Structures are given as C-alpha cells and as structure tokens.
C-alpha cells in the first residue's frame, strides 16, 4: 500500500547529539516537504524538494539540513541538537510541483534535553 513513513516516531536525546529523522514514501512523488509544528500550533515549512538532488529552504528558518539522493527518501539532519529544536517534525509528499494535494507522514516528536 502506498504510504509515507517517518522514523523514529518519538526521540528523546541530549544536547549536542547529531540526529537524523527519516522520511520515506512509496508513492513515487517528486515533491517532498518537512514541516515543524509546536504542540497545538500551525505547521511551518522548513525544507522542500522538487526531486532528486533538489533541496530548498522553506518559510521558517531552521538549523537542520536535508538531502534528496533518492526519490523516495528525504532525511532531515540536525548536526548538534539543542532544546530549542524540541518540536514535532512532519514529512509530506505530493505528486506535482503545484502541490495540489500533500500526503503527510505520522510525524516525529523530538525532545532535546
């Protein structure tokens, strides 16, 4: 079944650690996105990609980085986690550049102590 997956679902980690949040989709979508969402708040776009080897920064500035080596995979990396990075990170994908409809993953809830 076509879907979008995120691992881990929950992560508690100490300050200064390097972390990678995984996102994979099996729908063959070209465009993928990362959003940051604080509890009970709106989503803010932090990264997106039009396809392989394409990455762009979103509306909200983030210290994280992303890569897109394969169509189905769009990992997000924090080189040195800080408490201010504590948030939920949602990955999404869509089948067109216009982003007519986005499919969301279940999210990763990150806590940095």
């Amino acid at each position: 079944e076509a879907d979008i997956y995120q691992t881990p679902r929950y992560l508690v980690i100490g300050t200064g650690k390097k972390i990678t949040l995984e996102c994979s989709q099996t729908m063959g979508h070209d465009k993928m996105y990362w959003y940051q969402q604080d509890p009970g708040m709106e989503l803010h776009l932090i990264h997106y990609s039009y396809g392989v080897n394409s990455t762009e920064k979103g509306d909200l500035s983030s210290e994280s980085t992303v890569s897109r080596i394969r169509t189905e995979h769009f990992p997000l990396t924090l080189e040195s986690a800080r408490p201010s990075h504590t948030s939920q990170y949602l990955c999404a994908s869509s089948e067109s550049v216009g982003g007519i409809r986005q499919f969301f993953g279940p999210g990763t809830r990150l806590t940095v102590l």
Partner: protein
Amino acid sequence: AQTVTQSQPEMSVQEAETVTLSCTYDTSESDYYLFWYKQPPSRQMILVIRQEAYKQQNATENRFSVNFQKAAKSFSLKISDSQLGDAAMYFCAKQGNLIFGKGTKLSVKP
C-alpha cells in the same frame, strides 16, 4: 505576504449536530487551491476537502462541505451530523508550498 487566518482556536459541537469552522486568507493570485486538513490526536494528518478557486461550486465530501466566498477570501468548513471521530485539530491551508492557519481544535460531545 500570503496569510491564512483561523479565528476560532477551539470549537465544540454536540454529536449529530452541525458545526462550521472559519477560515480567511489573503492572496493576490486568481487561481489557487484551498484545503482543510484534519489532524487527530497523535495521528496522521489527512486531507478532508479541497476547493479550486476557479470553480464556483462549493466542494462536498460526504458530511463535509465548504462555503467558498472568493471575493471575501473566505473558506469555511461545515461538518454535518458530527461524530466522535471528528474530534481533531483542523487546519485551513492555501496552495503553494502550503500556508497553514493556526488551526481550530474541535471537540465533539456525546
């Protein structure tokens, strides 16, 4: 800058009743898509309904319908015959790299 505004942080509805969630937006574009997404507690965000701006007819999906007023830049969501499973955060969003409103938390009372 484009914005999406949801002025109701929380709403409550009795089971089987109807509730309307409000959304307004700002854009200079003439053709675009608008969406309502549902985010249940600790569950995946899913698309509820979408509206193409050039279509005058309001979109409908089963118990969910929208009232799209293009000139007023208003896009409200009506949920009929509310069910307990409708309890969630609802986000209004505009196409582009999606611009989201702050969300409305809907509670459904049995």
